[in-house]
C-alpha cells in the first residue's frame, strides 16, 4: 500500500511519525500464584474443588434418577426433571470451570512469539510440486503419452451419476402432488350443513345469538376415513352473528348471509394461519401470526397487517328444519396466494355453484 498517491497522508506525514512504533510486548506481571506458594496451593485446591463439584453433580444426577419416582403427578415430573437436570448441570459446569481456572492460574502465562515465515515457497519446492502433479497424471493415464480415455470417461460418468442416488428419491418425495387445482375447492357443497368443531353437530340459525362466534366444520368431515385433516385445514369456517344494523352487505353478496349471520373462511389470505381472534364489539377478526386484521362488518376487508385480500365468504342459507347450510363452495380459492390462483378465481366458482345461486 503506497501513501504517495494520497496527498492528504503526505501532508500529515510531516508532523507525525512515519509509522507507529512497535510497542513490543506488555510488561509481564506475575500472578499471585507465580510468586506466592500459598496462593499456588489455594488455586490448586480451588480447581480440585470445582472438579469435585462436577463429581458431586454426577452423583446427584444418578441418585436422583435411581431414587425419585414419577407417580404421574405433574409436580413429581417437574421435581425429577429439576433434580436430574441440576446434577447434569453441575457435572458439566464443574469440569469447564475447573479446566479454565487451572489454565488461568497455574499454567504458564508468558506471552510467546513465533515469527511468521515467508509465505512464498522456494522455487525448487514449487517446481517439485508441479513435477509431482505431472508425474501423477502420466502414471495414472489421465494425460501424457499413455492416455486411458476409457477409464477417465467412465470415472467422470460415475462421479456425476453418484449424487443422483441420493438426490432422486429426495426430489421425488418432495411435493408429490403438483395439481394446484385441488387448492381451489373445499368439501363445502350446496345444502351441506354447517356443524360445530369438533363434535360435528348441526347448528340452528336460532342458536346463533348476536355476538356469537361458532367454529365450524362441514357436515360429514368427521366421517372421512382419509385426508380428514387436509379437508379440515381447507374447509374450516368461522360463523358469526352481528346486529344486522352493523352489517354492511357487500354488492353481489346480499343473499349470502342470513339476518346478520355470516360465515368466513378461517384461513388467512396472507400465509394461511387460522384467523380466529374475534373482537365482537369492533367486529374485527385478528390473525395471531402476523396481526392481519379483517373487518367482518364490511366483507372481511383487510384493515391492518400484511394480508392483501379479504377472507373468502361462505354463502349460507337456512334449510327447512332451521339448520344453517352452505349455498355452495367458496367462490374463490381459500388461503394464501399461489401461482395459478387467479385462474381458479376468474372461472370463479366450484362445480355446483350454478345451482347454488338460485337457492
Amino acid at each position, binding site marked *: 500500500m503506497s501513501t504517495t498517491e494520497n496527498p492528504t497522508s503526505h501532508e500529515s506525514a510531516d508532523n507525525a511519525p512515519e509509522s507507529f512504533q512497535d510497542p513490543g510486548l506488555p510488561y509481564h506481571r506475575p500472578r*499471585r500464584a507465580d510468586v506466592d506458594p500459598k496462593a499456588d496451593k489455594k488455586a490448586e485446591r480451588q480447581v480440585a474443588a470445582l472438579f469435585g463439584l462436577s463429581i458431586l453433580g454426577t452423583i446427584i444426577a444418578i441418585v436422583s434418577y435411581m431414587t425419585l419416582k414419577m407417580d404421574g403427578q405433574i409436580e413429581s415430573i417437574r421435581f425429577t426433571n429439576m433434580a436430574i437436570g441440576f446434577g447434569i448441570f453441575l457435572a458439566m459446569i464443574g469440569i469447564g470451570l475447573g479446566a479454565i481456572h487451572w489454565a*488461568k*492460574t497455574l499454567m504458564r502465562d508468558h506471552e510467546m512469539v513465533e515469527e511468521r515465515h515467508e509465505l512464498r515457497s522456494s522455487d525448487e519446492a514449487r517446481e517439485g510440486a508441479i513435477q509431482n502433479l505431472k508425474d501423477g497424471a502420466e502414471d495414472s493415464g489421465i494425460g501424457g503419452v499413455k492416455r486411458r480415455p476409457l477409464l477417465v470417461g467412465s470415472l467422470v460418468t460415475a462421479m456425476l451419476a453418484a449424487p443422483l442416488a441420493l438426490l432422486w428419491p429426495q426430489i421425488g418425495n418432495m411435493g408429490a402432488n403438483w395439481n394446484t387445482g385441488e387448492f381451489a375447492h373445499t368439501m363445502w357443497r350446496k345444502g351441506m350443513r354447517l356443524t360445530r368443531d369438533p363434535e360435528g353437530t348441526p347448528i340452528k340459525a336460532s342458536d346463533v345469538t348476536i355476538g*356469537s362466534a361458532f367454529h365450524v366444520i362441514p357436515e360429514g368431515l368427521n366421517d372421512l376415513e382419509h385426508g380428514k385433516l387436509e379437508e379440515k385445514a381447507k374447509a374450516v369456517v368461522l360463523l358469526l352473528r352481528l346486529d344486522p344494523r352493523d352489517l354492511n352487505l357487500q354488492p353481489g353478496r346480499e343473499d349470502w348471509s342470513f339476518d346478520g349471520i355470516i360465515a368466513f373462511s378461517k384461513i388467512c389470505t396472507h400465509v394461511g394461519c387460522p384467523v380466529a381472534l374475534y373482537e365482537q364489539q369492533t367486529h374485527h377478526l385478528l390473525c395471531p401470526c402476523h396481526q392481519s386484521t379483517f373487518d367482518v362488518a364490511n366483507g372481511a376487508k383487510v384493515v391492518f397487517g400484511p394480508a392483501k385480500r379479504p377472507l373468502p365468504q361462505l354463502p349460507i342459507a337456512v334449510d327447512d328444519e332451521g339448520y344453517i347450510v352452505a349455498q355452495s363452495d367458496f367462490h374463490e380459492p381459500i388461503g394464501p396466494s399461489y401461482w395459478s390462483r387467479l385462474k381458479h378465481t376468474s372461472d370463479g366458482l366450484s362445480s355446483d355453484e350454478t345451482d347454488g345461486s338460485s337457492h
Partner: protein
Amino acid sequence: MNALARHRYHRAAPVVLVLLLLAIIAGVAAAVSTASSADAATTATADDVTQGQKLFAANCASCHGLDAQGTTGVAPSLVGVGAAAVDFQVGTGRMPMQASGPQAIAKRPQFTQDQINQLAAYVASLGAGPAIPTAEQVDPALGDPAKGMELFRTNCAMCHGSIGGGGALTQGKYAPNLWETTPTHIFEAMLTGPQSMPVFNNANIDPEGKRDIIAYLKAQDQGSPGGLRLGSIGPVAEGMWGWLVALGLIIASTVWIGARSS
C-alpha cells in the same frame, strides 16, 4: 489509564450482574396468588329487586341511564343482558368502571356478593337474560378435563392461549389470564360474551361442555412439567428468557475466560 481500566469493575461484577438479572426475571415470573371463589346466587326476591334498583341508581345510572337503557357512545343498554352478565362484570370488579380505556380492567369488587345479587336481580327483572349458574354447573370436579381441552383449543385458545395464560388483542385490548378466575365467572363470561369476547351460548357450547372447559383450566393449577411457565404467553417470553439469561451467562463466561488472573 490502564490501571483505571483494570480497576473500574470489581472482578465479581459480571457474576453479580447476571445473578441480579436472574433474580429480577424470576421475581417477575413468580407472581402467583390464590383465587377466592364466589358463591352462586340464590333465588331473587322482590325485595332484592328494590334494593338492586337503589344500588343501580346510586352506582350505575350515571352511565347506563336511570332506566338502564344505556347512553349512546358511553354505555350499552342492560335490558336483557341477564343476571349472569351483572355477576361477572361487578363480581370481577370490571364494573363500575374505574376509568375509560381500551377495556375495563378487573379489580377488587366494589360490592359484597349480596349487593351484587341484588343488582343482578334488578337487571334480570328488566328483561330475560342468562341466569347465574348453579354451583353444580361450574364444579370442576364434575367436568372432564380432556373433553374440555378439545373445546378450549377450538373455541378459546386463539385468544386466551393454549392453557389459559391470556394474550394480546388489538389497540391495547387483551384476553386476560384465566387461572385465577373463579369457575362461576368463567361460565358467565362464556355465556354473556363480555367486552371483546364473543358469546358462547348454551346452544354453542352446552353447560356440560362449559364445565369441562372449567375442569381443564383448573387442571392447570398443578403447574407445568417443564418448570417455570413464564406466563405461558408463548414464544416471546421464552425468547426473552433465552436472550437475557442465556446470552448474559455466555457473555459473563466469555469475560471471565478472557480476563487475566490476578
